[in-house]
């Protein structure tokens, strides 16, 4: 038996730890280290998953089964996925790991035994960019209490074997032994407003443009496309706001306090067409977006939340991923230096391609 895999707090990890804590975990750690305000949390590393998997399946049967699947045969993939998920989700965690996670959760709670947390999958593969994994594994919001947390760690692991993930890996031919799952446990914030922020215009690819989208409540209803968000365009360099669209936001996601998780509810009439972020928040967000982009050295897609806390309303960054759509298109410079500055004038006024 190998040594007990310990959990890692955000402040102790960074991008270099991707293999161990997954893309999401590494990114949250990196942000925390860059002094970006991220809700605190810890990561159950991939080694914990490996240990648990070995305990559950010492013969490596699960991975062999998957490698033997035909990527064309969707029904057998689905059936295998179901079996594996059941197996993982129902098996108890190794005892030492349970203790470790429970202790970390207790520390995070700081006295509140039912502090709500988000339990998020943070998958990793040596052969694939984290971005391409995004959305394939589960995230559970508003999880309260030690037992529920432990439960959802297992569910996250299990989600590595949902049909979509399996199909995806089979299609790309990713070797199973290199696929692993870390799990992020992060304090939940109860946001008045949430949203996304693109530090490069998603519509035009303009690098000097920040686009912020915002909705009432939790960001899940925006990411899930259930409401049309408010939208503000901010100039990254001057900080001036450009176009501003206030949408009718009829719906919001709020924590389901009775049953756990989130639920949708109608937004009171007077709030629907009211802007859900103020100029101050826009300014602060843009500054944070710039800081994150500068830290990573490339444009980012960011998820954020604005929470009302006793100390006042506070902005949190929940996630930051490198922008990939426009980044992939940048191959050629827009203009190349000419032998003389005048050549640019001759090219433009002479209608020549520079």
């Amino acid at each position: 038996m190998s040594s007990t895999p310990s959990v890692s707090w955000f402040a102790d990890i960074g991008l270099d730890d991707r293999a161990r804590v997954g893309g999401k975990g590494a990114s949250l750690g990196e942000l925390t280290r860059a002094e970006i305000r991220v809700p605190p949390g810890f990561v159950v590393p991939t080694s914990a998953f490996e240990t648990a998997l070995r305990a559950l399946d010492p013969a490596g049967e699960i991975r062999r089964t998957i490698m033997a699947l035909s990527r064309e045969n969707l029904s057998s993939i689905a059936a295998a996925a179901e079996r594996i998920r059941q197996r993982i989700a129902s098996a108890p965690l190794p005892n030492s790991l349970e203790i470790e996670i429970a202790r970390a959760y207790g520390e995070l709670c700081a006295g509140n035994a039912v502090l709500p947390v988000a339990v998020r999958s943070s998958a990793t593969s040596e052969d694939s960019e984290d971005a391409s994994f995004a959305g394939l594994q589960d995230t559970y919001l508003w999880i309260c209490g030690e037992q529920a947390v432990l439960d959802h760690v297992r569910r996250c692991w299990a989600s590595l074997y949902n049909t979509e993930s399996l199909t995806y890996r089979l299609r790309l031919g990713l070797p199973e032994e290199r696929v692993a799952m870390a799990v992020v446990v992060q304090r939940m914030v109860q946001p008045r407003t949430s949203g996304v922020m693109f530090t490069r215009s998603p519509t035009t690819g303009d690098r000097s443009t920040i686009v912020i989208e915002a909705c009432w409540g939790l960001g899940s209803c925006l990411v899930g496309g259930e409401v049309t968000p408010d939208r503000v365009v901010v100039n990254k360099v001057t900080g001036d706001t450009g176009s501003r669209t206030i949408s009718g936001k009829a719906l919001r996601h709020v924590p389901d306090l009775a049953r756990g998780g989130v639920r949708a509810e109608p937004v009171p009439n007077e709030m629907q067409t009211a802007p859900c972020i103020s100029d101050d928040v826009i300014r602060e967000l843009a500054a944070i977006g710039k800081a994150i982009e500068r830290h990573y050295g490339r444009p980012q897609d960011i998820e954020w939340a604005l929470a009302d806390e006793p100390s006042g309303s506070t902005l949190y960054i929940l996630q930051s991923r490198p922008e990939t759509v426009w980044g992939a298109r940048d191959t050629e410079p827009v203009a190349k230096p000419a032998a003389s500055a005048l050549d640019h004038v001759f090219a433009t006024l002479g209608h020549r391609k520079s």
Partner: protein
Amino acid sequence: MESWWTDALQEGANSAPKGAASKKSPFPLPSELQTPPGAEGWEEMYPYFSRFRPEDDNRFWFYNSMHFPEPMSAFDSLSQEAPYAALGAVTTRIFVFPAALGIDYRVFNGRVYITGNPVLDPKEIERRLALFQKRAGHYYQNWSALYSDWQKRITDLIKRVDAIQVPQLPEFEDEEVVTKAKGIPQNHYLWENFNRLIEAYSIMWHHHFEFLMLGYGAYVVFFQYCKKVFPEIPDQTIARMVAGIEVLMFRPDDELKKLAKLAVTLGLESKFSETKSSAEILASLEQAGSAGKDWLAAFEKAREPWFNITMGDGLDHHHRSWNDDLTIPFAALVSYIAQIKARQSLERPTERLKQERDRIVAEYRQLLPTAEDKAAFDQMLGLCQLVFPFVEDHKFYCDHWFISRFYNKAREFGDLLVKQGLIEDREDFFHMQHTEAKQALTDIMVAWASGSAPVGGPHWKPIIARRKRIIEALKGWNAPPALGPMPEAIEDPALLMLWGITKETLERWAKASDGAGDGELKGFAAAPGVVEGVARVLLTSKEIGQIKDGEILVCPATSPSWGPVFNKIKAAVSDVGGTMSHAAIVAREYGLPAVVGAGQATKRIKTGQRIRVDGNQGIVTILD
């Protein structure tokens, strides 16, 4: 005059639209225009070649309201002839711009409509480009040396205008004509000296455009590049990157601030009061001992050349300079002295502005995707910074200093005509075309020689009276912003920057001509920020004394003589202008939100109304 270039560089934007003949244009055709009652016969005031021709119905024209906001008097025809002749010569004949010839202009009801002559044939563009590279290249490469030579040429030219003498036609010629065997009497100099005045005007315009189109060429290149690499970058932000901080345009206003400070330092502030005229203030300073003398000496020094700024764009003879009418500078002095007493800073924060500009440049540069882009960006921006001093400063030398002197010299010829009984008042001189003025001088020339009296009085007086009536009647004419077929697309950033003319502008104009209109005006986002406040509509800079602290200025367009108001207002709105127009540049300097090119702002907004100015999006909303 900064916006002539946009037309010359527009590269086909104003060409007749393809296949648009069948579609009904929202704008009237030139042939459909009507003359208001009482203005019949206006054509006699302007030369025959400036009139619309039947084939002009097939071309798109727009009203140059920036330079000709009012019906022109006959003499002022010069202010199309000379500039358009100079601009076109530069682009068409001297530097051989590849894709643009000059500008055609037409006069109707005293208003000036213009359109560009693009070069569309790619082979012809190539042929012209070969020449352009060599010729423009010479100027760009030797820019700074050529520009300092230019400054000497233009100041010499102004001196030459000042030195022109209007012959006083003595009863007997000076004896020197005989003893020095000069052989040429004074009546000859009526012709020669008047010709020299007109020639100097023509030379000034050639100087004006000599560098200008090349300068704007550099801007266009940089603007186009920025738009390509940063598709959402606001024009105003690009303009901020090329802006110079210490340009001559700010100098007259800076001189006033210095004089205000000096007045306070010398303990003379009580002499300056809103209720006293400038003459009364000056008289009281004469009596104020050595302090008064010191101040007056500094004042006289500042006047030359800095008070030679006119209250308009410099094209219209009745836009007088600060030197001609001290009301504006003294109103500003009173206000600045009050601000000093209230411990408000008068300084333009030049250091902060420079740092902010440099930061914007550095951050945009940092955002460029490749090292090659950064190098190209440096080249293009470097060229803009090289041309910037001329582009900004020529306005002071040409449009203000020279032109105010020119019109004043013309007034001296007017005085002679009054003395000789041809006209009633020196200002009546401007109701003659310059060719007619020469005829009137000829009348005097021959009469003086023969010993008779000139016969021009009964001839000219009724003509001038009629023309004054016509001008009055023409003032009521609401000139359509554009004529002829709607162009399919206007994409050139050049048109955008100064004129504010885009496809959207045209559509807005078209809508406005329908009589539609809610409480919103769309213009150009010229300087960032959003504020609400009380509007003050001013039609000329003569009225700037009316403006109160914290009001929002709504005006047709601004020029340097409006400088003093920018310390008091909290936002600016203009009818005409683009991103590089005066109001836009100054508003950015002062950090005030501004919307320029808002079209009918001075007509639709009333003084006292609450309005919101959104300088980020270019929207003015009437709140009342």
